[in-house]
């Protein structure tokens, strides 16, 4: 009876692992197959070939696309963290009239469907002369990351001990000194977690990137992958698409594996406590 239970549990764990990892595994396998081998369903290529990985960069400006994504996501994260740090200090540590309303507004904005700002944002982007340029994506992605950053940092900031701040106030520290000299060093891990989550959401953003970019060279990675086209209209280059998918996924998977504990605490701080 005992070993039946154990075996059933082991089976359950195996099924969970296969379900979770198989699509990723299959993408890797397919990316290593070329020619007609791609169209045979074999669990591993006879002779793994890297042709698809070089083709991604020659058939498409994929290097440029990756650079665009890194640039946009980094800029968005830095802006969100800088703005979010002071805003969350005010929201977490200072009692003032209108604070709850502001917090509700921040939460409300993070629930916005992107589509609801799309036409207004399009007009704004065109008016600023950002259409088909990367600043359009930096600007528009802030709507995804800034409310989220403020919200999560506020949650973390609330948990810092009161005594530290009191001691600083008695010593005559200004709020600015408290934020930069007392809290910022303590918030390092929280900033890293929040930044990583914001980076992932900016990296994955699709709707704005699809709408505000026109030329291949301005596209970010998700748009480039979604619009990958083959040599002819009838041929989808699946091997190349899978290679591109693996290239952009591996760094994310590595990051997630390294920071998994922090990611979990960040996600739950953002969702459950909210």
């Amino acid at each position, binding site marked *: 009876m005992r070993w039946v239970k154990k075996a059933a549990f082991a089976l359950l764990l195996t099924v969970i692992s296969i379900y979770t990892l198989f699509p990723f595994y299959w993408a890797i396998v397919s990316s290593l197959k070329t020619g007609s081998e791609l169209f045979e*369903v074999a669990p591993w290529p006879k002779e793994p070939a890297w042709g698809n990985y070089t083709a991604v960069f020659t058939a498409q400006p994929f290097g440029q696309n990756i650079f665009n994504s890194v640039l946009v996501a980094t800029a968005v994260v830095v802006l969100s963290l800088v703005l979010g740090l002071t805003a969350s200090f005010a929201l977490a540590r200072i009692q003032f009239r209108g604070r709850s309303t502001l917090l509700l507004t921040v939460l409300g904005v993070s629930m916005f469907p992107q589509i609801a700002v799309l036409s207004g944002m399009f007009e704004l982007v065109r008016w600023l002369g950002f259409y088909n340029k990367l600043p359009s994506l930096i600007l528009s992605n802030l709507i995804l990351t800034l409310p989220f950053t403020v919200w999560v940092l506020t949650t973390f900031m609330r948990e810092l001990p009161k005594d530290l701040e009191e001691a600083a106030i008695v010593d005559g520290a200004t709020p600015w000194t408290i934020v930069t000299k007392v809290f910022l060093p303590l918030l390092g891990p929280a900033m890293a977690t929040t930044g990583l989550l914001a980076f992932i959401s900016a990296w994955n953003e699709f709707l704005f990137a699809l709408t505000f970019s026109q030329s291949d060279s301005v596209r970010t990675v998700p748009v480039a992958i979604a619009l990958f086209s083959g040599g002819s209209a009838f041929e989808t280059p699946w091997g190349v698409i899978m290679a591109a998918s693996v290239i952009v996924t591996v760094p994310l998977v590595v990051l997630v594996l390294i920071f998994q504990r922090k990611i979990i605490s960040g996600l739950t701080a953002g969702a459950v406590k909210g």
Partner: protein
Amino acid sequence: MAQPATPIVSGKGGASAPPEAPSSPLEGTSALLRERTRAAWMFLAPTLVVMLVVAGWPLARTFWFSFTDANLTDMAASQFVGLDSIRQVLDDPDWWTTVWTTFRFAGVSVVLETVLGMIIALALNAKFGGRGLLRAAVLVPWAIPTVVSAKMWAWMFNDIYGVVNAVLLSLGLISEPMAWTAEPGLAFGAVVAVDVWKTTPFMTLLILAALQMLPGDVYEAARIDGAGPIRAFFQVTLPMLKGPLMVAIIFRILDALRVFDVFFVLTGGGTETMPMAGYARQRMFEYQEIGVGSAAASLLFAIIALFTAVYMVVGRVKLGD
């Protein structure tokens, strides 16, 4: 940024009583309070300005466009048409098809995600070797961009060369290859499959976090009362998980209602397999009808705002401590 260097003393004390030191400088004199309130607004100002620019203004413009006949070719020439654009959306049977698709999608995938998330969370909550590794592995689908996971699955769902058809054929479950992404009924299932795969980890994490906060002694008591694992789950675990579970579910519903990427990549935009956001975007940029498209977007916004209100009430969001 002047700050009183002298110790803070409350001014309430009468002549007879010695001035009473406040219990905490954070609740100090009104001068300090004013100073802190001023600092709060200065700290908030940049964020508020950015939020107004990227959220408030575009949202207001979208609402405004909903009442105009704005066209992409010449947005300056748009005219106020009252409820005409909104009526155009409401009179369009295609819109109602997308509404039905979106709600069905949200319902089916959130139910599946919740059930699967619960099963996986319960499994990961048990103690076994390699638990940390499996917990990390479960996060992988969540980290992969939606577009990329949709492409990975589109390849697996390929009608001629896809691994899904190959496996089902070899198991004898189907007699001929199925066009998973081309046929509307099947395509809907394919989209749900991708979404469930991608977002179940999120559900798992939230449930797991809640499970780990449950007190152990309740289970002890249940075991002494002779409750088996299944009864313990339904009578002890589930009732205690209710709060966090409701929050997670409504959170996911909100997300599913604004779905766009998975449908766009997997089905390529036929009306029968399009979500509301896809409809709005198509009207705006493919048909160039910014006005009508914005009206559809505003309707979707209204629906989501309604659900957000429900989220606030059900999740009993506590603001301020």
